[in-house]
């Protein structure tokens, strides 16, 4: 049986996921995609699922033909990880220092790092502060304006509540959400990519 999927305009990894879901029911799949990332992901999926892959370029799109090879049944269960270059990252700040070594140097580097995060092209969706990292969110840390800017630009600021309590800085936090271990662990687990200086 054959199906036709129009995956143009969909964000990565949706096109390849759609194709994967249809492999259970169809031995022949025609897919329209509008970017090379989707093309490459579907090519890799075809290779690992026993489908013959071919495509032709038509205008700005690619028309892909997938045909299940003889004696192959799609298991659909194999691990396949789509690669999406633009996935959003979550920044994890676990200390007020960047790296291990000299304390003063580490603190200086961390300030420079936080400032640089505000200028990143692939803007992170979240930034999580815990342990001594929470000190950076307190008034007077030297990066308050950067954290404000991150929030303004749509980055969610999660601050470990236990840590805020431990360091006794609750009154000094102006920007961000006081959060908990469940949200923090869940955010890390569902992150496209974790960035930890």
């Amino acid at each position, binding site marked *: 049986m054959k199906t036709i999927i129009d995956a143009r305009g969909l964000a990565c990894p949706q096109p390849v996921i759609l194709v994967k879901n249809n492999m259970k029911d169809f031995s022949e799949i025609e897919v329209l995609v509008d970017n090379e990332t989707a093309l490459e992901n579907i090519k890799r999926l075809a290779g690992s699922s026993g489908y013959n892959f071919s495509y032709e370029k038509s205008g700005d799109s690619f028309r892909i033909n997938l045909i299940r090879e003889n004696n192959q049944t799609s298991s659909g269960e194999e691990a396949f990880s789509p690669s999406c270059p633009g996935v959003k990252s979550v920044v994890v700040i676990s200390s007020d220092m960047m790296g291990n070594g000299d304390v*003063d*140097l580490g603190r*200086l*580097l961390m*300030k*420079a790092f936080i*400032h*640089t995060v505000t200028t990143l092209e692939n803007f992170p969706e979240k930034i999580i502060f815990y342990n001594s990292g929470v000190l950076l969110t307190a008034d007077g840390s*030297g990066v308050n*304006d950067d954290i404000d800017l991150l929030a303004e630009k749509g980055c969610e600021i999660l601050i470990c509540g236990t840590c805020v309590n431990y360091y006794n800085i609750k009154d000094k936090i102006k920007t961000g959400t006081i959060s908990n271990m469940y949200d923090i662990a869940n955010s890390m687990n569902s992150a496209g990519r974790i960035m930890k200086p």
Partner: protein
Amino acid sequence: MICEDEDEHFVALFFSVSHVMKAEKILQKSDIPFKMIPVPKTISTDCGVCIKFEMQLVERIRSLLDGAVEIKEIIRYC
């Protein structure tokens, strides 16, 4: 470099990271607003940290650091 008036700043560059850290400690004891930022790529591609401040503070910063930390250069930056 053309700046909007309100965005006009200077950055002070130093000869080493140790110099920057020393300068930061001195400025922290004053009430002067300043900010530690990575040396902008437009100024130098070296890995470094510098001190950013508002234009009108330049003389105060110079006098606070005078004799304590040598400033390599002060450059306009926005």
